[in-house]
Structure formats: C-alpha cells, structure tokens
C-alpha cells in the first residue's frame, strides 16, 4: 500500500517532466524571456521570477536533473557499500579492519565539509560528477549494515550446506547470500537516492556546485539570492519546494514499503 502510493507519487513527478518536455515552451527558462516577478496566471501557471524566467519551465528542466544526481549518488553509494560490506563480512580479517577504519574516518569527518570542499576546489563542472562525488562519499552506512547481514547469514545452515557441496566463494555470494539481501538493498537504495538528492540540494542552496545547471536546488538558491521570501514572491520559492517535498515523500514511502517487505515483522500492525 505504502509502496504503491510512493511509486505513484514518483510516477506523477516523472509524468510531470515528460508532459512538460512535450508541451511546455522551455525557451521560457532563459533570462528575460518572460515578464518579471509575475504571480501565477493563465499564461505562466507557476508565475515568473525576478530575472524573467517562467517557473514552470524551470521546474520541468530542473526536476529530471535533480533526480539524475540522486540516482547516480544512489547507484554509486549502494554499489560501493555492498561490495565493501560483502568483502568485509565474508573475507573478514584484515579486509574487515581496513574497511572499518576507512568508514569510521569518513564517518567522523563531517560529510558536508568534504563535499563542500571537493566541489569548491576541484571544479565539478557537470551534474553527473556531483552525483558521483556524493555517492563515493556516502557508502559507509550500507557497508556497515551489509557486513552485519552477511556475518549472520554466512553461518546459516543453507550456506554451510552450499559450502559443503563444494560451491565457490563467488557462487555462495551471488547465489546463496545476495537473494536474501535484495529487498533490503532495494530499500537502502531508495534511501541512498533520497540522501543524495538532499545533499545536492543542500549544496546548491549554499551556492556550491555547477552553477548553471538549473536544478531544483539552484532555483531555490536564486530565489534566496533575490530575497524572494522577503519580497513576498511566494510562488518563486514555493513551487520548487513543493516538487522537492513530493520527490522526498515519494522516495520515503517507497523505502518504507520496501522495508516492510524486507522485514515482515514490521507489517504487524498498520
């Protein structure tokens, strides 16, 4: 139920961008292409900003970009986290120690500092790079939990059975262990995507990252920079905030739904 609602919300957002790309005049996202600071009207549904851009066109362009950053961050984070988690949990010994120390170090350093730093000084020119940078720095949680899962799973009877019948390490990892983790990994993938989007928007609101990328975070930065709140241009900051909240709500409900599949005990009362 939650899962369906979440997916429906995400679907609606994707439909919004697809329809937008088909029917909205995206030229209106350029400077001075529309009258300035107009509240929502029939002509410009979500109003226009102080530099003469249609908010609707900005949202249509920005939404998929923000989603892309999140997806890339999620894919990177989950892939690295799963690999290292499996490695630490299955091989144990020195690998476990090294991975643990590295993840502890990254955990202790405020991640926003690292991100701000990398993005500020090593010019991140494109949004896909931003996604990857965020992903590379956010695998620690996944690695830790995958490790814990693998540690309990590897002692189970069915794994010993496979080992006794001569299955190799890779076969055990992919055929015996992986399937037990899929629903769990799906849930943490969704969480990682949402975390990636949160980080990217946070950085953009601070004015960091590829400045001309027109993502949702940047539209809020522009609104803030032009004092939209204090000038009463509620549509300017309000519209991106609504879309962002819808994205997070959709992702959140999806991950809660997947969590319940992964952990049947949670279904108890609802």
């Amino acid at each position, binding site marked *: 139920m939650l899962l369906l609602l979440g997916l429906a919300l995400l679907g609606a957002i994707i439909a919004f961008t697809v329809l937008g790309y088909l029917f909205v005049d995206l030229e209106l996202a350029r400077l001075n292409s529309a009258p300035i600071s107009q509240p929502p009207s029939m002509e410009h549904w979500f109003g226009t900003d102080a530099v003469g851009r249609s908010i609707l066109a900005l949202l249509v362009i920005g939404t998929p970009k923000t989603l892309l950053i999140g997806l890339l961050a999620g894919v990177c984070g989950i892939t690295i986290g799963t690999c290292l988690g499996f490695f630490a949990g299955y091989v144990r010994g020195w690998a476990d120690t090294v991975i643990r120390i590295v993840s502890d*170090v990254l955990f202790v*350093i405020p991640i926003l500092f690292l991100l701000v730093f990398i993005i500020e000084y090593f010019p991140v020119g494109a949004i896909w790079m931003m996604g990857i940078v965020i992903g590379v720095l956010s695998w620690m949680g996944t690695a830790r939990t995958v490790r814990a899962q693998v540690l309990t799973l590897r002692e189970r009877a069915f794994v010993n059975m496979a080992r006794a019948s001569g299955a190799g390490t890779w076969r055990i990892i992919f055929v015996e262990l992986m399937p037990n983790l899929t629903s769990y990994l799906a849930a943490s993938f969704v969480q990682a995507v949402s975390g990636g989007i949160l980080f990217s*928007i946070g950085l953009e609101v601070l004015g960091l990252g590829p400045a001309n990328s027109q993502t949702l975070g940047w539209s809020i930065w522009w609104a*803030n920079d032009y004092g939209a709140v204090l000038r009463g241009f509620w549509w300017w900051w309000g519209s991106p*905030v609504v879309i962002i909240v819808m994205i997070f*709500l959709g992702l959140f409900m999806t991950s809660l739904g997947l969590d319940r599949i992964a952990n049947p005990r949670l279904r108890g009362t609802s």
Partner: protein
Amino acid sequence: MSVTYLLKRVGLFLLVVWLGVTINFFLPRLAPGDPIQEYLGQLAQQGMFVGDPSAGFVEEYRAKFGLDKPMWQQYINYWIDVSQFNFGLSVTDYPVEVTRVIRAALPWTLGLLTTATIIGFVLGTLFGALMVAAPGPWKRLLAWTTPFVMIVHSIPYFLLGIVLIALFAFTWAVFPLGGGYTLGESPEFSLDGLFTIVKHAFLPALSLVAVAAGGWAIVMRSMIVIVQGEDYVQMSRAMGLKPWRVFYTYQVRNALLPQITFLALSLGFIVSGSALVEVVFVYPGIGTILLDAITVKDLPLLQLILLVVIVVVTLFLILLDIIYPILDPRIRHETD
C-alpha cells in the same frame, strides 16, 4: 568488559582521529588556491585598497602562517602546535586567535542544537510509541496524523526553515527574520536577554525539531512493532501485568535501545553545527563559520573546527561503546 578490549578500542579511535585530522590537513593544501591571495581578493572585492600583490608582503604573510615551508614540515609543525594547544591566528579575522573565533560561535550552536535535538528526540520517540500503543480513540486520532508526520519528515529541514520564515517572520511578523540576537546589541544576562535569545532561536529550532521528531517517531514506531512480537512481551501479558506496565517496562525500554545509539551520535555531531539552518537563519554559529572558513580557505580556523568535531564525535563513539553493554546486557564485548 576486559581491559585489552578497551585498550584496543582506544587505539583504534586514536588511529581514526589521526587519520581524520591528517586528511583535513592535506585536503585543503592540495587544492588549488592560496589562502592569502584568497583573502586579499576578498578585501579587494569589498573595495579595500590591498596594494600591489607583487610587493612581497604576500610572501611575508605566507611566512607568518608558515605556508612557505614544504608540506611535510608544515604537517610536523602543525602537530607540534596542537600538542602545545597553540592553534594559531585566523587568516580572515587577522590577528584574532582562532580559539576566540570558535568560542564566540560555539555557545550559539550548542544552545540551539542541543535543545532542538533533545526536544526532537523526546517528542518523536513519545509520539512513535503512542502511535502503536495509545488507548482506543487516541490511537485513531494519531493514525490520522501519521501522513502529516511523514510529509513534515520529507521536507529538507533547511527548506522548512525558508517556509517558516516566510510564514512566521514575513507574512505574520511574530518572530525575527534571522540572527541570534537583536542586531548590533550583545547578549545580556537578564530575563529580557534570555527572551530575545529564545525568540531568535525559535524558528530555527522548530525547523530542526519538526523534521527530526518525524524521523524518531517512524523508527520508534517500527521498533515497538518489532518488540511487540517478542516472547517476553507475550509472557508478561500472559502473567496479567497491567497494560501500561507491559508497555513501559517491556516494550518502550527495549525499543529505546537502538534510539539511544542514534541520539548519542547526533549529540556528537552537534559541535559541527548545522550549516544549512544557520545560513538560512543567519545564525552566528559554528556551521556558518565552518562554511566561511572553507570558502575563503582560512586554514588555521578550518583545522581547529575539524579537530574539535573529530575528537568530540570519536569521544561519543567510545562513550557509546562503553555505555551500551551496561544498557543492554545481551551485548558482551568479549564475544566480539
């Protein structure tokens, strides 16, 4: 808990602190850009006359901050200075000691974030527990609020901050637009002064509390549901204990354990401030200073903030390690 275990843990933590501080030392230095030039550029931007950069005084300042020496020597000097609690002068606030810069900002951040974290934890945990176990009609009421909690939890806290400013500082000007105290005045220790501080901290705290409480509530709710199925809860019910007693002593206390872990971690991270909320509300805390220090590459200031953050967070990790087996006797370190 054995002594060897503790020693091993402490050793590991020292290693983590050392590695973290080392990364923080080299990362800014390997990046392009020079702090002195960066600072002069900033002054020039503000319309200040900075003179001819080739006049050799850039070199003089670089020498003053020890930036002219080879990297390895700077690194060794840094540790010597740290061991003598000599953290140097701020580049941007020259010649103010970085310890003073931080001491000015820390109370704001600690006050705001400690209060917000604890209120958020208590409210959220209580709410999450009641979502499962409140008596009849109340439970229905709470069930209706669940979607609302989820929506609030889905708003990034800094965006909630913008919404709150628009509503309660702009449209209805109940609260100030930002800052930690009345502009141009310094805080005084009186009832009035306290009131002003609370008034300024209210909206930032609210944006942090609302989002965090939602998170605590959701986790607490699922923990209670999980605990509900445990044998000891069934047993205590079968023994005919009063429902509130089963709820409090057997369910809440067990469900609280993992929450405590996260509470300790979030308390540890308080020292790093919350840059985004502080920027949105123009709050004079550590987060703002950290962000400024990064953007203008104020190396001494940056190093001290990160040193404090790393040490405090690792300390909380150690503390957690020591306290957890006392809270939950099922965890023994010998078997680790």
